């Protein structure tokens, strides 16, 4: 074994910092990645032939690719042969038996966030009793959605029950050859969510991972596909504010959104995976490909994200504005503390006439955190009258952190109007002084100012999420002041 492989084995085998049992359950495919692994995953999931074929094509293409190196993120090399690519959900015995077995540090965080007791158990991965089984909750909602013709469930179910829809849309926004991690995901993705809103239907509730069946243990290669047919509307929430228990270090998810004529998709993410300890040990690598296509005229896709977790976040939720008059939006808050690194931003590709896009990115760096905004606004020749406004603001807390901005602007049509603004600053002494003078502690003042800085983005979140996000910011910033 080489030195890097050794180091990786060490990383992988290390006891989970929150004290969970990490014994490998019996129903897994062997470590490593080969065509055989891909076939095995597909077979386990009883997939139709077209899926296996697609996975294999992706895998063969992945073999020809090399890991991208252009990001500012630094991390030890990942050994792709040392990952278990498929693992059946854990049995109840493997989980902590009660909250008493859970790391008190984690419990304190839940306390601060005000997470209900039952949810704490679920989030911490405690074996949940039958009364609070997410399945039963989920089923209730599923019936209601089915009445409207909305298909919402796990990806595996969708592949079995609606293969035609999956075949039509899978990989149509993020092709398997798109990038290294997307190809890897296409080859080995274990599960995820699938959602289809029929024409003219307005989804009556926020679809969220909370209510999702099979939401747990979907593994590190998750795939989400959301299709809003003509005139449909859906708001989808991913993740939650409480730290999620997770054993996988590398996460390479893919999210594809398709909006047809006059459809609207609102996709909100709150990501708070384990960021590693103060010295940057452990933590999740979150390498995600997220892209939406406004395929129809007048369609509208908006991404809202609050990223506070993960050791490394590397993602660029993007919009392809193909339909005339379509609209793309990106609102982001990314916070890095301790040794966290975030490289995030958005791509707006304007193809249709009179397409509009807005990018609002707020980066906060504290401790030794590294925060980069990287974005692309591309106006093609066909995008007559296209309009973009981008704003990237960075807030620096502490003199060891870093904030970067890498906006790319490419314009091939003179009728386009593109504006980009960026600023970097820290919390002013006078601002703090003003607050302290009025009896507000430094810590509270910082939290207040940071929340004010992020307000523009938080207001895009569904209400209950916005409240949680504010609390999350103060908790994530703890220890970064003074």
């Amino acid at each position, binding site marked *: 074994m080489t030195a890097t492989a050794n180091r990786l084995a060490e990383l992988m085998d290390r006891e989970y910092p929150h004290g969970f049992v990490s014994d490998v359950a019996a129903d897994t495919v062997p470590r490593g990645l080969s065509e055989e692994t891909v076939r095995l995953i597909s077979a386990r999931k009883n997939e139709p032939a077209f899926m296996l074929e697609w996975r294999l094509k992706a895998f063969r293409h992945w073999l020809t690719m090399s890991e991208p190196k*252009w990001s500012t993120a630094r991390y030890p090399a990942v050994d792709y042969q040392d990952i278990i690519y498929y693992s059946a959900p854990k049995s109840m015995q493997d989980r902590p038996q009660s909250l008493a077995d859970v790391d008190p540090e984690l419990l304190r965080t839940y306390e601060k966030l005000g997470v209900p007791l039952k949810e704490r158990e679920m989030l911490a991965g405690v074996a949940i009793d039958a009364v609070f089984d997410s399945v039963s909750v989920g089923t209730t909602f599923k019936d209601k959605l089915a009445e409207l013709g909305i298909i919402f469930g796990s990806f595996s179910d969708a592949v079995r029950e609606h293969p035609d829809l999956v075949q039509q849309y899978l990989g149509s926004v993020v092709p398997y050859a798109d990038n290294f991690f997307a190809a890897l995901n296409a080859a080995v993705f274990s599960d995820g969510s699938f959602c289809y809103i029929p024409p003219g239907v307005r989804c009556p509730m926020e679809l969220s991972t909370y209510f999702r069946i099979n939401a747990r243990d979907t593994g590190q290669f998750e795939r989400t596909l959301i299709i809003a047919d003509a005139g449909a509307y859906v708001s989808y929430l991913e993740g939650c504010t409480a730290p999620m228990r997770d054993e996988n270090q590398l996460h390479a998810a893919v999210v594809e959104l398709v909006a047809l004529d006059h459809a609207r998709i609102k996709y909100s993410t709150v990501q708070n995976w384990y960021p590693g300890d103060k010295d940057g040990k452990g933590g999740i690598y979150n390498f995600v490909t997220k892209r939406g296509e406004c395929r129809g005229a007048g369609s509208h896709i908006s991404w809202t994200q609050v990223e506070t977790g993960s050791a490394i976040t590397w993602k660029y939720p993007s919009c392809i504005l193909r339909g005339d008059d379509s609209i793309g939006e990106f609102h982001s808050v990314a916070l890095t503390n301790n040794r966290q690194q975030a490289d995030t931003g958005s791509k707006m590709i304007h193809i249709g006439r009179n397409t509009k896009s807005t990018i609002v990115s707020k980066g906060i760096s504290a401790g030794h955190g590294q925060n980069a905004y990287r974005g692309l606004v591309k106006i093609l*020749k066909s995008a007559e009258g296209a309009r973009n406004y981008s704003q990237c603001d*960075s807030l*620096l*807390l*502490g*003199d*060891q*952190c*870093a*904030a*970067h*901005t*890498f*906006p*790319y*602007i*490419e*314009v*091939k*049509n*003179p*009728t*386009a*109007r*593109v*504006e*980009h*603004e*960026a*600023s*970097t*600053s*820290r919390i002013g002494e006078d601002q703090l002084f003003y607050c302290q003078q009025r009896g507000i502690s430094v810590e509270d003042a910082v939290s207040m100012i940071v929340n004010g800085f992020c307000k523009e983005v938080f207001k895009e979140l569904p209400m209950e999420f916005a409240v949680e996000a504010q609390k999350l910011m103060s908790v994530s910033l703890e220890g970064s002041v003074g």
Partner: protein
Amino acid sequence: MNAREHTLADYARSAVTLPGAGVPWLARARRSALERFVASGYPDTHDEEWKYTSVAAIEKQAFRAASHRDGDLAAAASLVDQLALGPGAGHLLVFVDGRHCPSLSVPGRLPAGAHMTSIGEEFETAPESLEAYFADDDQETIFAALNTVFMADGAYLHLARGVVVEQPVHLLFIATQDGAAGAIISPRNLIVAEEGAQATVIEHYVGTDGAPYLTNALTRISAAANASLTHYKLQQEGAQAFHVAGIHARQAQGSRLSSHSTTLGAVLTRNDISTAFTAPGCEATLDGLYLVGGRQHVDNHTRIDHGAPHGTSHEFYRGVLDGRSRAVFNGKVLVHPGAQKTNAHQANHNLLLSRDAEIDSKPQLEIYADDVKCTHGATIGQLDDNQLFYLRARGVSETMARSLLVHAFAHDVVERIRVAALRSRLEQILFSRLPQGERIRALA
């Protein structure tokens, strides 16, 4: 023969004719630069620094190092008459096809402590003081290495402590029809200002439209504590010319650098302009204007390294693009750890006048200190309909209204030029390029 073999052979052939052949450190610098070039070759568009600018056309031309024959001096002389700032205004050094031409130069009287000469001459007479400034720096582009390999001449300006040169130093680089065709011209300039010294330098490139050639220039600037240097660059190369140039400055405590770069000519232009603050309290201003049309391609890369606290930088670049032209702007501002109280502002505005013009703008901030104020902004658009309407409603013809607005847009940069003769020269060029420009001039 590929580009590397071609360059090796070209070097082998021309090495003996290059100045300072007998200076060991110079030979070493040339060799190490040659090795760097041979190791990497010309950049392609996979290289992030060259993402939007392909130099395949330069590679294809297989230019040869400019030979030591003289170009058409009569033609050059008539150009000098047109382009000199005027009798008594400034200190003129003329270079024809990359070599100093004493007969056309009018150095004038410089104050004591100011030393101005051709770098080729300095290599022959007093090379020892120059070594530190001629090492190949692998932070600079591969074209900088190529310049070190083939540099034949250029200007050397040394200002002793406290010396103030009142009149601008005008460096005029002329590419003649015969002398430049098919050649790489590699001017190399060095400007060293000791403590508290002040000067204004104009680097001016002109060429003829006849045949393709490559100007691959490199200027290094060293500003000691409290020195103040103003650098203007005016690029009016021939229509088929390629122009690649680096201007790299290092600034010591409290020094000031003001750089102003105007691009008008050449089919392909690439400017790499950088400055590094090595001590507290430095200030830099980088202004730029590009007026291009046809199939011109202009790429401005700037980089400001805030390596020390209390630094201030301002950057202001504007471009007007017509025809099928393409412009690239990449403005990098780096605030290094510990460079507290940094103030950095950058703006890039572009006006697209034609359906086929294209702009790629990439303002970039990398910040490793917290007590800083950094902003950048970029805009791209066409002429404002409301403004056009305002003028049309007052009986101004469409052509005239458009010209007025373009003029106003470009004028914001031109008016920042402090050398009156140069400013009026640029105004004149601006008017001559705009439809009905003469009428606007009459109004102005």
